[in-house]
């Protein structure tokens, strides 16, 4: 938006408006600097110290030792810890699985809801419920549904003779990630569907009408008209979801606990910080996580050529 004041007489007004702009921004900027800027820089700084969470004041600078160091012929530090690499692998696996399933499923639901039918508003409200449920609660409810002895899922699978014996969804190490993905897909697909639906509803109607008049097959219309037109909005939604998935904590923590088989990067970092009280080492993990997410964001933005913001 360009807003130019027309006359020279009002240039003092422009100056006073700029001044009031900064005045109006000041409280928000101060708070943001306090709760985002400072903690981030402090975390990065702590990553280079040997601080203990219980005695943050007693610390000394140890350089990159938290990340990697070599002692007595062995490597130490985050980058030498197999549990860290396990959590990276888990998080990437979680991100790829959930985001792709949620996008496909969400697109399907959005296409259905894009039709007009009686009660559409109610259906839209209904699919907002999984989104609104606290992550902790959805993990608890699914923990109950997936319970190995009394859970509904096993009951249904057994009565349909799909499985013979109850499946230990939240205890069997090989199934933990599957369960976590299942719960996250349930919780977040509606969000994807609503974002895609909003994009679909902004498409110009004429495109469809022209295509329908031509007698083009609906599937062809989808690939040739719908998909290219919603692609920018879809990419934004996918990027947001991917960034969100990379920092996953609640669902996994509540459903499976701090279990090595399903540990995410965030859980690993928090465990180091507040269960093992290693503030320095944990901050190194946090710092790595920050740069991984930042890098992923930049790569995704560049790869999809999506422009966020304006000006």
């Amino acid at each position, binding site marked *: *938006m360009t807003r*130019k004041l027309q006359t020279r007489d009002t240039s003092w*007004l422009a100056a006073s*408006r*700029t001044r*009031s*702009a*900064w005045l*109006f*921004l000041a409280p*928000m900027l101060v*708070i*943001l600097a*306090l*709760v985002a800027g400072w*903690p981030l820089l*402090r*975390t990065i700084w*702590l990553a280079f110290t040997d601080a203990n969470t219980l005695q943050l004041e007693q610390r000394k600078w140890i350089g990159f030792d938290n990340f990697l160091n070599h002692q007595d012929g062995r490597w130490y530090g985050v980058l030498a810890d197999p549990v860290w690499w396990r959590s990276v692998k888990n998080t990437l696996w979680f991100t790829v699985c959930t985001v792709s399933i949620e996008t496909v499923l969400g697109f399907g*639901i959005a296409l*259905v809801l894009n*039709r*007009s*039918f009686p009660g559409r508003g109610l*259906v839209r409200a*209904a*699919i907002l*419920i999984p989104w*609104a*449920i*606290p*992550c*902790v*609660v959805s993990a*608890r*409810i699914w*923990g*109950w*549904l997936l319970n190995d002895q*009394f859970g509904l899922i096993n009951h249904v699978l057994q009565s349909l003779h799909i499985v013979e014996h109850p499946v230990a969804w939240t205890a069997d190490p090989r199934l933990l990630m599957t369960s976590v993905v299942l719960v996250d897909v349930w919780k977040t697909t509606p969000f994807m569907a609503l*974002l895609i639906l*909003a*994009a*679909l*509803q902004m*498409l110009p109607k004429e495109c469809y009408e022209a295509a329908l008049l031509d007698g083009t097959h609906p599937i062809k219309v989808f690939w040739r008209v719908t998909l290219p037109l919603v692609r920018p*909005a879809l990419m*934004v939604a996918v990027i947001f979801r991917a960034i969100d998935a990379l*920092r996953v*904590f*609640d669902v996994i923590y509540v459903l499976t606990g701090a279990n090595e088989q399903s540990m995410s990067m*965030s859980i690993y970092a928090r465990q180091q910080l507040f269960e093992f009280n290693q503030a320095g080492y944990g901050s190194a993990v*946090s710092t790595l*996580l*920050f740069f991984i*997410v*930042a890098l992923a964001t930049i790569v995704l933005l560049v790869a999809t050529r*999506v422009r*966020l913001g304006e*000006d």
Partner: protein
Amino acid sequence: MTDESLRAVSPDIPVSSGAPGSLAGTARRVGFFLLVAAIVLYAVFPFYYAIVSSLKPGSALFRVDYFPFTWYFGNYASVFRGQPFGTNILNSLIVATSVVALSLFLGVTAAFALARIQFRGRGALLVTILAVSMFPQVAVLSGMFQLIRALGLYNHLSALVISYMIFTLPFTVWVLTTFMRELPKELEEAAILDGASAWTIVRRVFMPLMWPALVTTGLLAFIAAWNEFLFALTFTLTNDERTVPVGIAVMSGASAHELPWGNIMAASVIVTLPLVILVLAFQRRIVSGLTAGAVKG
């Protein structure tokens, strides 16, 4: 995007393209409604099952039922006895309400400057704010912990109010800026000519027009604060200072293998019901708020 514009451009493609009454047309319509029913069932069933489970006494809990046969409210009573769950709910309410008030106040003033005044560095500021909204919470966890210890707020609800600003504030500023930018500029020009101060313009000219956007962002901030888990788990220590997500997450029975499922389901229903009511009442607003930031791109 406002919900009005959403409504205006909705394509409203009819459900069935077959001739009315034809067999193929009917089959397609039935198929379509089965699909819709499946979607609704998928979205709603787990919560419904939690309600059914929460209404069962201990022994019946271990039998699968699809409908509530007993209307047993014992779980709802006992959830308040074993732990300070009432206090937890109150804590959540206090935190979420304070977060909404604070982020709306800071958001409106900042959005006014970002949306209505042309100044150098505005674009960079907007990008910075968007970048903050992508911060992983864990990335600031130890720095935030130290900040809260330094302010003497550890194990205080105010620690949560302050720290939640990191995710509610960028979002609030972003959505309100988008909304404010679309208001016609003639609005304030008359006020400026009258010599009104910027603060008066915000209060008298913009605030009355901003209600829809304020309701939307307020609701989203409330839900985000109500649901937050990581900071609440880390910055509070005692049961009396906990918010409901942490309260529910730490609920345990005599041993790790004997979770009090009845209580957990009752607690889950209690904290989710207000949200479900909010969602049903304000779904249009929430959807328009969720898409306001994202779809613009």
